[in-house]
């Protein structure tokens, strides 16, 4: 089954990327995780994203465009990236999620990918 591992980070964790004292540990942990994940052969695709301040949020209400600089203002955790992995079941997907560096400094949401509709 295919699952998306959705990596979410707290604002504090996001800040570590640019903190010279924290950055090596931050990136080192991700590098190790990503390497292990790819080595397992389960990854279908995946990406890390630029930090939340680079986001632009668009909403159309009553035909009117609202463009906003940054992510949704109520967001307590920020999307850091995702992987699509192909594993036999949820328990194994959760095992991978548990290894993500952000799991203790944010969270990982695990969602099954909706299979494509059957071709008729």
């Amino acid at each position, binding site marked *: 089954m295919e*699952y998306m591992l959705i990596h979410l980070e707290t604002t504090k964790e996001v800040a570590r990327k640019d903190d010279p004292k924290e950055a090596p540990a931050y990136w080192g942990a991700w590098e190790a995780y990503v390497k292990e994940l790819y080595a397992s052969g389960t990854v279908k695709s995946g990406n890390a994203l630029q930090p939340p301040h680079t986001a632009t949020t668009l909403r159309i209400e009553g035909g009117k465009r609202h463009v906003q600089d940054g992510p949704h203002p109520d967001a307590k955790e920020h999307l850091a990236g995702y992987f699509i992995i192909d594993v*036999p*079941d*949820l*328990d194994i997907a*959760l095992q991978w999620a548990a290894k993500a560096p952000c799991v203790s400094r944010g969270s990982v949401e695990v969602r*099954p990918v909706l299979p494509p509709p059957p071709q008729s």
Partner: protein
Amino acid sequence: MNVAEDAASTAARVAREAYGRLVAALSVRFRDVAAAEDALGDAFAEALARWPETGVPASPEAWLLTVAKNQLRQGARHRTMASNPRVLGALEQALVELSEQPSEKGDLRLRLLLVCAHPAIDETVRTPLMLQAVLGLDAARIARAFLVTPAAMSQRLVRAKQKIRDAGIPFDEPEPAKRPGRMAAVYEAIYAAFAVDHDASEVEPGVESLAEEAVYLARVLTELAPNDPEALGLYALLRLSHARRSAGTALDGTFVPLAEQDLARWDRTAILDANAVLLRAAAFRVPGPFQLEAAIQSAHCQRLFSGHTPWKAIEFLYATLNATWPTVASAVAHAAVLVEIDREREALALLARVDAARVAEYAPYWVVVSHACRRSGDLAGARDAMTKAITLTRSPRLRNFLEATAAELCTPAARR
């Protein structure tokens, strides 16, 4: 006893047992609980309706499978299911397997229980899921015990089964390292079936009991996991508690505290059976919270045989329980026992150590505080605590009892 009624309950029990086994077997094959229930539901309903009159067939499972297969072939109601050849194929294969091996070997109900109590399933729906998937109880019946509408319960169950199917929750045996944690969730959910009933029926006396079902599920678990001392402990605990249950209510409906219960209303057979199971559990020499709780209940039940309650032993058991598996409820119960053996100062000290935020709304805590204060001569403290307990108690019969106790605290006799 009404003979027809007895035949009906036997037929229902056998039907539920067979249905639960088949739902488990098909769920594991489909990795889909709802599909398994759907394939067998009508056959099960027919069994519940017919077996009380016709008697239980020689092979209940084969009967259910054959009827389910014929219903699917006719495709009267299950248009979507009937068009799915894997369902028919699975029913046919299950029939073949059934003729090849004794049904205990194909009993996958433990796996189904583990799926129902999977950590990815919301805790509040685990117990309803088990009651439905393993015992075949309908949503309306479960809803009545949980004090929610049948529609709300039905929706929760449907969602949970969708989650099981769509999230890919595994139906395999958990790996050995994870098994204790997964089993603990199963114990908790079965225990909750027993407890929810107590809570609900306290508030609304008309609420139907789920206690029988909880004891039954616990017994099934002892058969599925006979070498699991905590499963045995859970069954012993529920059976012992259930054995005294009716004695907790007087004939006029008022609450009867343990100390004043009519021992003739305790179920002696159930107590002896539970004690034997608890001994079997103890032989494994792997203690756990349910075994200790059961041992405490067993000690309370000793009064039936010896005429007195071994309070010191009970105190020791609570101390052991709280040293390793502390909960607010067991700390409060421990304090109550300390009061009973004239160690009210220790009881008050223990109660003072309990996290205040967690007992602010927990009536038993304030009842025990009241008893401990009274014994140590603090009548004002005792009255305050009892007043608090009364405001926190929803059950009318329990409140009446506490109000009588509170009134007693205002009489000269209380000063002794």
